[in-house]
C-alpha cells in the first residue's frame, strides 16, 4: 500500500518514557481480528489507555490533552515482541508519522518503514534530552528532516543525525513501497527459482 511522502516533519511530540514497549501493549491481540486495515488507532495502547469498562485512564499520556503531535517518543527497545504490523498501523492511524527511540526491535522497524511511519533512532543521551525538554514544555517541537537525516530539538537547536538505509530513505521520500519494485523483477525471480536445489 502506498503512503504519503515523508520529507520534513516539525511537530510537538508525545512522550512515553518506558523501556521494552512491546507490540502487545501497542495493540493487544484481541484487536487483531479485522480483515481490513482500518480503525486500529482507536485501540492504540488500549490497556494502558482505558480501564476494562472503557473509561479513559487519566494518567496515561494519550489521554492528557497537554500532549499532542505527530511524533511519538518511546523508551529503549521500542516495538519488541510480536510481528503484528497492526501495531504500526495503529500508530499511523492514530496520527503519528514518526517514532523516536534509542533502540527499535527489528520487525517493528521494518513494519514502520513499509507503511510510512519513520523510525528515528537517537543516542540514549539525546533521547533523554528530548524527554527533559518535553517535560519542561509539553509543546516543545522537534524537527525530523529526512533528506538531511537529522532530528532537532527546536527550543535549543540541539541536533543529531540518524541512520536510515538509503534505499528505504528513497522509498519514504517518494511514498513508494517494495512490492512495486519486486513486481518489476518477475522474470528475474522466476529464472532464479528455476535454479534452486529445493
Amino acid at each position, binding site marked *: 500500500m502506498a503512503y504519503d511522502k515523508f520529507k520534513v516533519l516539525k511537530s510537538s511530540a508525545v512522550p512515553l518514557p518506558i523501556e521494552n514497549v512491546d507490540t502487545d501493549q501497542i495493540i493487544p491481540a484481541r484487536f487483531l481480528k479485522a480483515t481490513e*486495515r482500518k480503525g486500529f488507532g482507536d485501540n492504540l495502547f488500549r490497556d494502558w489507555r482505558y480501564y476494562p469498562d472503557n473509561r479513559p485512564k487519566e494518567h496515561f499520556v494519550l489521554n492528557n490533552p497537554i500532549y499532542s503531535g505527530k511524533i511519538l517518543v518511546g523508551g529503549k527497545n521500542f516495538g519488541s515482541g510480536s510481528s503484528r504490523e497492526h501495531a504500526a498501523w495503529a500508530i499511523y492511524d492514530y496520527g503519528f508519522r514518526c517514532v523516536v527511540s534509542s533502540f527499535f526491535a527489528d520487525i517493528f522497524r521494518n513494519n514502520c518503514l513499509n507503511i510510512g511511519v519513520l523510525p528515528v533512532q537517537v543516542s540514549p543521551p539525546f533521547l533523554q534530552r528530548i524527554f527533559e525538554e518535553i517535560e519542561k514544555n509539553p509543546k516543545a517541537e522537534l524537527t525530523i528532516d529526512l533528506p538531511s537525516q537529522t532530528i532537532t530539538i527546536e527550543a535549543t537547536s540541539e541536533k543529531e543525525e540518524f541512520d536510515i538505509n538509503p534505499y528505504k530513505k528513497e522509498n519514504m521520500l517518494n511514498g513508494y513501497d*517494495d512490492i512495486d519494485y*519486486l513486481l518489476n523483477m518477475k522474470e528475474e525471480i522466476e529464472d532464479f527459482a528455476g535454479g*534452486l536445489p529445493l
Partner: protein
Amino acid sequence: MSEQRTLFDKVWDAHVVRSISKGPDVLFIDRHLVHEVTSPVAFLGLKNRGAKVLYPERTFATADHNTPTINQHLPVKDPLSANQLKALEENAREHGIPYWGLGHQKNGIVHVIGPENGITLPGVTVVCGDSHTSTHGAFGAIAFGIGTSEVEMVLSTQCIMQPKPRKMRITIDGSLSRAVTPKDVALYIISQLSTSGATGYFVEYAGEVFRNMSMEGRMTVCNLSIEMGARGGMIAPDEKTFSYIKGREYTPKGEEWEKAMEYWKTLYSDSDAQFDKEIVFDGSAIEPMITYGTNPGMGIGISLGIPTAESLDGGVATYRKSLEYMDFKEGDAMLGKKIDFVFLGSCTNGRIEDFRAFAEVVKGRKKADHVTAWLVPGSHRVEEAIEKEGILDILHEAGFELREPGCSACLAMNDDKIPAGKYAVSTSNRNFEGRQGPGARTLLASPLVAAAAAVTGKVTDPRVLMELETA
C-alpha cells in the same frame, strides 16, 4: 567461493536474487506459511493491485491463532474470529493454496505443522507473518517473522527485501543437569542477553548442548530466539535432523532425497568462519528457570529470589512498573508462590516431547484443586501421539483434560484467557502485560515446572517431585 562462511551465509547467499546497491538484498523465499490473523489485509492488497500468488505450491495456510480449543466441530462462536477464518479459507481457495483449516487432519499451530509435514527442510528460507517463525531454524533453515506488508510481498513475488543481518554464535558446552530442558536453556540465554541483546543479529546455536538436543528441543530454542531480539536462530543440520525429516509428506523422495542430502551435508559453519559476535555459556550452570516480570528476559533460576532494582544497570522505573503489574516484590522468592492456572502448549512447548515431560511429573499425582490447567497440543498429530503413547491415560488419572490444538492461551485470541490478576505458569513464549488476557500475570517456564505447579498449586522445583538432588 573459497572464503570461510557461516551456515547462515551459505543459506542466505544461495537465496539472493539481486543485491541492491546501498540497499537490501532481494531474498527468495522457499516456503511461506500463512495464518488467519496477519494475512487478510495482505490478500486484500494483492486484490487491489490485481496481483496473483506467484507460487501457491510454496505457500501453506492453516488456522491457529483464533481457533477454539473445545468443540472444534461446531461453528466458531466469535463472529470476528469466524470471519477471519472464513477469509483465509476463501483466499486460499481463490489462489490455489493448500489450506488446513479446523477439523483438517493436518491442522495445528503453523510452527508445529511445518516440520511435521516436511515443509521445513535444511537450507530453505521460511517466512510467516508471525515472529516465532524462528522455530524452523532448528532444521538449518533461515526462518523469520514478517509483517503483513511483507506477507503481501511474498505472496505476490515470493521474495522479500532485507538487509543481511549480522551474525552471532551462541555456544554452550557441558552437559545439562536432569530436569533442565531446552526451554530452560533458552530462558537462561534470554535472561543473560536481555530482550534486545540479539537485535540486528541472526543467531547460530552451537556446542554440545544443542548437538545433544532432540529436534523438538532445538525447535523450542530457535522459537525463542525472537525473544532476545534476534531475527532468527539456526542449528546446523545433522543425522538427527535428517532422520526426523525423512519420509514426511513434503520431504524429497528417492533420487531427490539423495541429491538434497548431498547439499544438506555442506550446511555448517566453516571452521574459520567469522561471526560478528560470539557468546559462550556453560551448560552445567543452568537450572530450571522461571520468569517473574513482564518480558521474557526477566527470568531467574527457580530457586533464586527476584533481583533488586539496585542490581540493574538502568531502567529502574520500567522494572518497578513491571513488578507492580505482577504484584511481586524485589527479593521475593519464586518458590512457593501460589498460582491459579497452568498452560501447556503453544509453538514453544506444544510438541509431543513436552507432553511426555509433563506426564513424567504428574504421573501418579493429582491436579491441585484450585488450579485450572489448559493442556493444548500443537497439532492433531501431537494429539494422536498423546493418545497412542498412553499419555492421555496418565493425564486423565491425574485429573487433567486435553483440549484441541491451537495457539490458545499463548496470546488469548480465542476464549482461553487468563482472568485479570490471576497467575499462570505458562510454557508459552511471552509474559507481556495482558498477553494471556487483560490483566493476566504470566510466569514462563518449562513443561516440567508447569507440571510441578499443576500438581502442587504453587511454584515448585520439579526436581523435588522427580526426586533429584537440588542445587
